[in-house]
């Protein structure tokens, strides 16, 4: 598949990640939240580590070998992981697509 055809915009990646979060934590919780690019996983979205695992797997399943998401996460220390927000992931995916 031509990567240029499948390249997603910032907004499209954001929408996709929002959908993944909804799949993982359930619509009833997402409805109560205002998910924004600056939302952090643990503080704002209150996702626990096993939910972030599921979220990571969705990203890996969607983008395949195009991105090494687990490898990217493993380069972060615990504080960085706790403060990780959607914007950082979107920018990382954008970088991998370019």
């Amino acid at each position: 598949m031509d990567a240029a055809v499948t390249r997603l915009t910032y907004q499209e990646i954001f929408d996709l990640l929002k959908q993944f979060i909804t799949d993982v934590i359930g619509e009833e919780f997402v409805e109560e939240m205002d998910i924004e690019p600056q939302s952090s996983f643990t503080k704002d979205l209150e996702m626990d580590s096993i939910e972030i695992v599921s979220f990571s797997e969705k990203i890996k399943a969607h983008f395949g070998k195009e991105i090494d998401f687990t490898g990217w996460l493993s380069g972060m220390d615990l504080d960085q992981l706790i403060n990780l927000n959607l914007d950082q992931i979107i920018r990382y995916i954008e970088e991998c697509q370019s």
Partner: protein
Amino acid sequence: MPILNVNGREVHVQELNPEGKETLVLVHGMFSNLSVYYFHIAPVLATTFRVVMYDLKSHGLSGRVAEGYDLNSMSEDLEGLVDVLGLDTFHLAGYSFGGLIALNTALRLEARIRKLVVIEAPDPADEKARGIIDEYSREFLENYVKNYTDTTHVRMGKRQLERNHRMYEYLFYQTSIRRDMQRENDFFIRPELRALDRKTLLVYGDTSNCLDSGRYLHACIPGSELATLSGDHNLPVQEPELLADRLLTFLTT
């Protein structure tokens, strides 16, 4: 392959580097899940090994099961998983209660185990370890979470706390976990431990209240190595990189 059917039950499994020549299976501790390895420890080990992580029954995203929390049943679950994965031989590492499961599995399946790593496994007869099992309350969870936050700086939100509370309540009041663990009091005095013939690494925190258990196992298991790293019982969260490096060195030399 997130959910596998093992002996008719749903088991949440994650793997890294599926092309790895040798496989390492990682077992998490009680009231935890595979995420204790997923973010920092498994990726380091996956530079060399195929790494398989799974959620114990009623933990993480695996299915709920009312019975079978004694070490032999937990080992049978692990054996069922490695059979489904078609693993003839494998390295095995476990943390805390998962360390006991790994050790018990090594006693049962010695010929299939390449090397064994036991991290922070407590003596099941130890009162401090048993205290958690004997008594559970909402206050206990809140204290447990506070202590966990103090020593690891990981905070739990309200929804996370509720999720954990539901899991703990299920495990404590609707499963046989307490009864089953009480039956394991004699595990450390089993004579088979002294005859275990596998390269074994024991890793404990230098300020852990389980360190004496590590020293005891070191004296018991012939040729075992005891490594102490800076930290307490929450070692995999406090020092994941150090721990992963120590495991990698042991497993590759």
